[in-house]
């Protein structure tokens, strides 16, 4: 029993140490990338930021700075993709929102479609924030319910208004959490990195449906060898070569 406990402690220590080591590698690369950025070496800085993220420094700040480096290198689409990754964990960051708005304004053909209130609300908080809020309301609801069960004269008595309101709030928060979770972890998006043609089918000979330019964002609805099917906010659907877009998705992490 004691030996098992020792082995467990040793393994846990090793795991923590390796995590720390990986994080310190990423932190030093992050600092190096910042220096390169300040010196105006944006391409180099972008490359080092990517290395830092791969080596444990996967933070919203690292993604944000990567987006800046890409933008300064003239890669509008890749910059937007990196900022979208940062937005998944810090959606209310004012600098991030400003940069995204600035870049989207530069993307040719970007139509400023009005976003539904529900979408704006769900994007204002992260998926985990919505889930936590729903969980807290869930617990409050059941605690109040348990109290009511214990105190009321009979189990057949109708529930009080507080319970109804709490239940409604719980349902709404759960819905928001599920929507946010789906949007964050199951919705794949694509950001165009260079001017290309969206075709009706995943073939070179297919007719062109519409033209896309660097920085435009789409939702990915399907994919096949070398091609992704995208849909714009206006409902246009077309197939674009995978080499012309950057995929933004957290579904691989699940």
């Amino acid at each position, binding site marked *: 029993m004691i030996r098992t406990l020792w082995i467990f402690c040793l393994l846990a220590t090793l795991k923590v140490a390796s995590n720390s080591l990986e994080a310190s590698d990423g932190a030093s690369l992050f600092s190096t990338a910042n220096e390169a950025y300040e010196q105006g070496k944006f391409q180099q800085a972008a490359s080092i930021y990517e290395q830092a993220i791969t080596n444990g420094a*996967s933070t919203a700040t690292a993604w944000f700075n990567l987006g800046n480096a890409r933008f300064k290198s003239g890669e509008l689409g890749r910059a937007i993709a990196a900022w979208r990754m940062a937005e998944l964990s810090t959606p209310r960051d004012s600098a991030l929102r400003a940069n995204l708005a600035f870049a989207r304004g530069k993307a040719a053909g970007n139509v400023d479609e009005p976003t539904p209130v529900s979408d704006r609300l769900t994007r204002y908080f992260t998926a985990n924030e919505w*889930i936590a809020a729903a969980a807290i309301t869930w617990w409050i609801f*059941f605690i109040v319910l348990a109290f009511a069960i*214990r105190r009321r004269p009979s189990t057949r008595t109708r529930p009080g208004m507080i319970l109804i309101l709490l239940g409604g709030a719980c349902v709404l928060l759960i819905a928001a959490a599920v929507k946010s979770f789906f949007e*964050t*972890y199951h919705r794949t998006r694509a950001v165009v990195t260079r001017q290309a043609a969206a075709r009706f089918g995943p073939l070179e000979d297919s007719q062109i449906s519409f033209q896309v330019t660097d920085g435009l964002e789409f939702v990915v609805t399907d994919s096949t060898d070398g091609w992704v099917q995208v849909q714009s906010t206006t409902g246009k659907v077309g197939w674009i070569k995978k080499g012309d877009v950057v995929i933004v998705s957290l579904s691989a992490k699940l």
Partner: protein
Amino acid sequence: MAVAAKRYLRLASHVWVWLAIWHVLARDGNAASVNATVSRTIITLGQTLTLTISVEGAQAQPPGLPAIPGIQVVSQGTSVQIINNAVQHAFTFELAPTQAGDMVIPGIPVNLGAQVAMTRPIQIKVLPPGAAAGGAPPPAFARIVLPKTNLYVGEVLDMDIQVFMQEGRLTQYPQLPADSGFTIGKWLKPTEARVAVSNATYTLITFRTPITAVKAGALTVGPATQSIIVPDRSRPPGFFFRNEREIRAIGELVTAVALPLPSNNVPSTFAGAVGQYSISWSAAPTTVAVGDPVTVRIQVAGRGWLDALKLPQQPQWRDFKMYEPNTKIEGSDPNNVSGARTFELAVVPQSADVKALPSFAFTYFDPQTAQYRTAATQPIPLTVKPGAASAVALPPLTATNATEAAPMSDIAHIKLRLGSVTAPLPLLVRPWFIALQVLAPALCFAMFVQRRRADALANDPRKRRRRETFALVQETLQRMRENADAHDSNAFFSNAVRALKEQIGERLDIPAASVTEAIVSERLRPAGFPEESCRSLEDLFHAANLARYAPVKSTAELNEQLARTERVLGELQAWEVKL
């Protein structure tokens, strides 16, 4: 007379001495000699000759050869010999002529230390390739062949380099000097043939490549140098390998004149194409709305540098927005000099008034006719419908409705603090989170079930009494055990009677206090309680009565009574009485 003779002799001896001295001095000053010779004065283009500068009687620096037009230095060397107590230095230069004709190797200055000596000029004759010098045909020679020497800038010509060799093998393609004013393409696969030249049989290997002049004026291509490995018969054959040596076949340079393209009346649809071309095109779909793209495919086929082709501007396409085209080349040779290049581009009609795709004009310069030619396509009819949503004109900004917000001119700067690592997994997929959320309704449900049971008990007195009686009986039996251990007979039997009365009262739904020994025969036996159990009950009551007067001291007896009491109580609890 004798005196005169003596005076004469004295004078002669003086003169003789001075002459001897002068002779010695003069002889020492003229001891160094410089000589230049060539191995042969008549050679064939493609062969080499050796120039030897020999210096005797002096220490000499290796001379530097001046640039000799039409002759290039292949190699040089130095040797020293001692002959008849004299040291002779020999400086050798292997020379290769690059063109046929009469040439002069000029005098070459040689630095002897105290003085500079000049060699005498040497005349040599270089015969054209194929011509035998001194009767023997050359082992190999080369030739550059151009179909014409007057060409236009950008015009593609096929250049052949013909290599004639009696024997040997080639290890590389011909070498040409760079920066000749021509762009030279990739070598095509060489062809081979056997030919007879000057009574000798040669293997003719032809190398072909396209060339094009990149600037106007007199340009030279060549000389072409081809390295050939031949057997070396001057040495005895080796045991495993035969001896070989390298020779060079040199193709004389060729001068061509590149003419500039005419600058008068150049069509606006000319984008630099030189050659012979034809054009065809297609477009789809032909029924679109304003803003929807039409895919246009333009194919330019013919002969010329297809890689350099560009689509010219089309001034009549002002009603269309055009995007950068994708291109594909289908060349029939490795240099893409002939074949077709296809341009695919998207054009977007900007107005519903557009009725057709205008003709596409492609202008090229034809070197054969020395004229600009324009190939044009037929217009393609289009049906352009108005767009789905017309743009609404925004009200102009005035001082009253203009906002004060200053637009961003650049992105926000980077952040310097790394921050914490974002959680890779959402809460919803973490097992502990799921378990925690399941706990809340589970606890609530448990509480609900308990409340329901309490309510059920409250509404069923008999059930409640049964539970209470059961608890009481269990408690009483525990006390009886303690009484038995303590040899307390009175308490033991008192508890036993109490337990029996409570249980019988619960079963018969009568107060426990009204239960007596007679209840066994009055109510239990008629109600169907088993006879043996009835007798056990009667015995227990009887034993309890007796114990009042004669207490049971023995623990074993008490335990026996306890077991009998437990058994009867169990039978009563299991008995379903029909009231």
